[in-house]
């Protein structure tokens, strides 16, 4: 069954991976899935609504929750969402999105960028 880890979660009180808020979002997903299993469009709409106001930080927590709970469909969906969000965006946008900083040596980054200069063309506006 999908939720062998859920039982473990409830048993383990000092769990920081999944907060209550997330549990209420992620766990009802499979029930909803079964209810509207045949209708993909409805499911898509439901999922879009779910993520409409979610900031990247929240998304992280959702992903980690889904990963911890071993919930494949939700993880699949969240990864797809992130991929769509960062596809064809600029390197700076992606750094902000993930909260990352460049750790390259001064010349290294430029060298990398030059190697595939064509891939930087036609990038979406931030």
């Amino acid at each position, binding site marked *: 069954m999908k939720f062998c880890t859920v039982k473990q979660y409830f048993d383990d009180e000092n769990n920081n991976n999944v907060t209550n808020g997330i549990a209420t979002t992620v766990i009802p997903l499979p029930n909803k899935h079964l209810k509207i299993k045949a209708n993909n469009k409805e499911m898509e709409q439901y999922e879009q609504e779910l993520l409409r106001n979610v900031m990247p930080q929240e998304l*992280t927590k959702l992903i980690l929750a889904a990963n911890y709970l071993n919930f494949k469909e939700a993880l699949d969906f969240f990864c797809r969402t992130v991929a769509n969000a960062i596809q064809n965006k600029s*390197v700076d946008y992606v750094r902000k999105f993930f909260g990352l900083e460049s*750790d390259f040596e001064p010349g290294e980054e430029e060298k990398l960028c030059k190697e595939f200069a064509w891939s930087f*063309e036609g*990038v979406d506006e931030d």
Partner: protein
Amino acid sequence: MSSSMLNNLPEDVLMDIFARLPVKSLLQFKCVCKSWCNLIKDPIFITKHVNQSALSNNGYLAVTRQGSTFGGNCSISLISYETFREVIRITIPSKEYGKAPFTIVGSCNGILCLNVSEIGDTNFLFNPATSEFKELPKPNYPIHELKEDTISDFIGLGFGYEPESNDYKLVRISYSKRLENQFYSGVDVYSLSTNSWRRKNRLVLGTVLVNSFSKAFINGALHWRGVTLKRGDVRCHIISFDLPYKIDLAKEEWWPFVRNGSLAMVIRSKTHEEHHYIFNIWVMNEYGVKKSWTKQLTVGPLFVLKLVECGMNEELLFATHSTMYLYDLQRIKPPHDDILEADIIGNNFVPWVEVVNHIESLVTIEGTKVYAKRVRKNSWFGKYFIFFQLFFGLVVMVAYVVILPKLIHFLYPTNVSE
């Protein structure tokens, strides 16, 4: 708790996200930070990305185009499956051979195998996404000396990938001998991992017909169209499988290919109308079982020369000498007899256009990094080009009708009587 933990995502989750991204984004994101760069370069990730790409609809059709009229190099067009319009054109980066007419032997995991010689000894591997280009060594095995220049008629090439050894192989089949009333061909195999050729000890039954490239790589085997002898009669033969029936070579031409995951074959028959052909598509429902050949559908008569490829979504691609047509069976209802119902994908391809299904990948072939000129074709412009043309035509017409008389009046005022 920290505001953003996205930078702490586990590696396999990151790989899952990256595997869904196009190569273009991945090459950029190498510059984000060191750990991302290493992850994107990781062969395990590259394989995961290839497998994911095969599932999605992000494929392309790769076709070679002639060089420009001013003697430019040949180029490869990538036509996207989403719009069936050319999206990228990449010039073949070879100083020595660039102007020669290249043909695409095949495409596996984003690597194109290209050929310039009729006897199949000058070949290249090219990954257009990573700009790696590699000239393969020549097979130093002799080809049977047939009369005049007919030898190229009996040579076939095929490009495939072997997952068990993670190796890319190029196979050349060439006529070897006629023994006890039967044709036999020799097989030479090039392996990328050893970067060398080897000739197989055993000969293969049959001989390849008319310099063909294997369009059918399925179940780990390459298939060519060929002929064998049976009781003195020439019989058509997919090298190693028999055909469902004897084909009359005078009236019919045929090619094996892959359709929806099965080995298939198209038989082209002449009709009483010149240059109009009927195409019958047969599918081997159970691989290796001769009785499982079933006629799946008939298309035609159409004013085209051959069926060049079966699309990823079962579309049929037909071609004349240099124009390619997309025949979408889901959109076009029977009777399938008018090529004008098909979409023109383009023209100015090399004669006898070869088309393959292709995906973009980061797979490395350990070739040299070359500068391959890569031009994005603005599909927006292409779509509305017809309107630009009409608009321009309208403007010209208006100018002719309205402005010209005024101009004449202005230049020759004496024409006007006061």
